[in-house]
């Protein structure tokens, strides 16, 4: 079936974010999703390309078939027609056991290796801003087979070095000691994978397997490579750009606005 793409102006940035994120899940996978865009992404994927994927919310529901979009992962709406409604011990245990394929995450800041900060701006011991903190971000990001980050594209958010590593990227602190080493070295035999994509409001980024460095993969319709470079605070590899991010189709937009979030919880 030929795809009927929407043109810039016919969709909003958040629509493209949801659609691009949805395309990261493969059918049959077990997916951890947090509040907001991750919910839109996985629910869209379940209604299009990944109908047999399983959705876990970290508050303790597995494979729920919500009739109404939950506003958070602890929401009563998560439970409807779930396979299991339990609690954190169950779902985080499965995560640590290696049962989770993909996690959707967000962050306030990200660095060139995909380390994410959701804890503080400034020095942890005397911060300028105290954010909510890690939540399950570092747990999912250290124990799922791969993770996808959804971020706002700003220079102050795409930094060479984040103020605090809340969630581990491809070059991380190895404890005890704290030297920066590759994730593979830090995790050793229990390495399972890591951040596989960062999706911002301007572009999709991926990571070099050897160096662990972020590179530009596709640029969203309406933006240029330079737009991206102007909103990144480190030396970004743009040599591998594949072209434009695939825009949303009209069908995907219809599903998002009429089936996934008709009440406008996260969509405008």
């Amino acid at each position, binding site marked *: 079936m030929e795809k009927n793409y929407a043109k810039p102006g016919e969709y909003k940035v958040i629509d493209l974010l949801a659609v691009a994120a949805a395309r990261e899940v493969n059918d049959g996978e077990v997916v951890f999703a947090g509040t907001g865009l991750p919910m839109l992404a996985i629910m869209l994927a379940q209604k299009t390309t990944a109908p047999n994927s399983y959705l876990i919310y970290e508050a303790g529901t597995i494979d729920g078939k919500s009739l109404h979009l939950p506003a958070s992962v602890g929401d009563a709406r998560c439970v409807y027609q779930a396979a299991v409604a339990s*609690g954190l011990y169950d779902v985080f245990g499965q995560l*640590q056991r290696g049962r989770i394929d993909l996690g959707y995450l967000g962050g306030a800041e990200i660095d060139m290796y995909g380390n994410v900060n959701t*804890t503080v701006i400034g020095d942890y011991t005397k*911060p300028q*801003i*105290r954010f909510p903190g890690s939540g399950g971000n570092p747990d999912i990001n250290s124990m799922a087979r791969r993770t996808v980050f959804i971020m706002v594209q700003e220079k102050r958010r795409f930094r060479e070095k984040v103020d605090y590593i809340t969630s581990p990227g491809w070059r991380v*602190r190895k404890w005890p000691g704290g030297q920066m080493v590759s994730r593979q070295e*830090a995790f050793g035999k229990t390495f399972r994978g890591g951040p596989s994509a960062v999706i911002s409001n301007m572009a999709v980024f991926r990571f070099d397997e050897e160096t662990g460095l972020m590179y530009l993969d596709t640029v969203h319709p309406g933006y240029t490579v330079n737009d991206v470079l102007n909103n990144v605070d480190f030396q970004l590899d743009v040599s591998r750009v594949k072209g434009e991010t695939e825009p949303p189709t009209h069908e995907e937009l219809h599903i998002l606005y009429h089936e996934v979030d008709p009440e406008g919880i996260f969509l405008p």
Partner: protein
Amino acid sequence: MGKRITVQEAVGMINDGDMITFSGFTIWRRPMAVIYEIIRQRKQNLHLIEVNSGTHGDMLVGAGCVKVWESCWIGHELFGKLGGNLDRKVRNGEVITEDYSHHQMLLRMAAGALGIPYIPTWASRGTDILNPEYDMLSKHAMRDGSNPNIPRQKAQWVEDPFFEEGTLIHVPAARPNICIAHVQQVGEDGTVRVWGQKYADEEAIKAADKVIIVAEEVVPEEYLRREPSQNIIPPYLVDAIVQQPWGAHPTGNFGCYEVDGPFVRDFYNKTRTQEGFDAWAEEWIFGVPDFDAYLEKLGYKRLQSLKANSAYKYSNEAKRGSR
């Protein structure tokens, strides 16, 4: 009915300086009636130790009840992007934060529930959570053993000798002095039933030395015992029982009522300054004598609009989004 007490009496069981934990998840099923009363009774120097925090935790912080906040997350989900009071008080050095990850906090509570002093985990290696520079309880000389419930170390790194899988982390047990849990139903003797997601309630209740259960309704033990596999806690683990309908408002309660989003958002907006919080607390906490008066002030119409549909287990009528 020897265990039935009032909200006021329940808060009387909490001591200044206690290490304390709660039921629920972010903005769901928090024991708010007790939270308000803790503030009203001006409890001091509490050490919150929580699998995750939320509206209730930030409220206690704003009211100056909290010395240490030990958890992984605080905020109000869709209704407030961070803990306004904690943000301000951390910036001002008025509250000590000790960060772990979500799974680490859960495992700490599970270890407490299991009666072991620590538990190994692979979670959140490679992060600054494990940076010894950021061990704030050490920095404040609180790991000297003077409080037996505070572990002497934040974490340890240990080699796996059994399967030779590498270096993993030992995180210490959480050992709260008291757990306050809001649930849907409790039996007259203390059997606890929770509907829907159980979050980390079972671990929090079992880890604590004292347990107060606040329930939407106290029901006959015989009724709950018809389906014992749906109950999570037996009577002898429960020290006191409080019946308080709507007791989790403004947080939500599966099968009972919705999160009161506008109420939480208003609270969050007020917390951007101490003056804002103080005025809010004056109106909603100090300005009313007790939780029933607070509910009266909210009014029938507002409460009714939050009430869950008994098939959906949530309100399918409440206006939630922009459309």
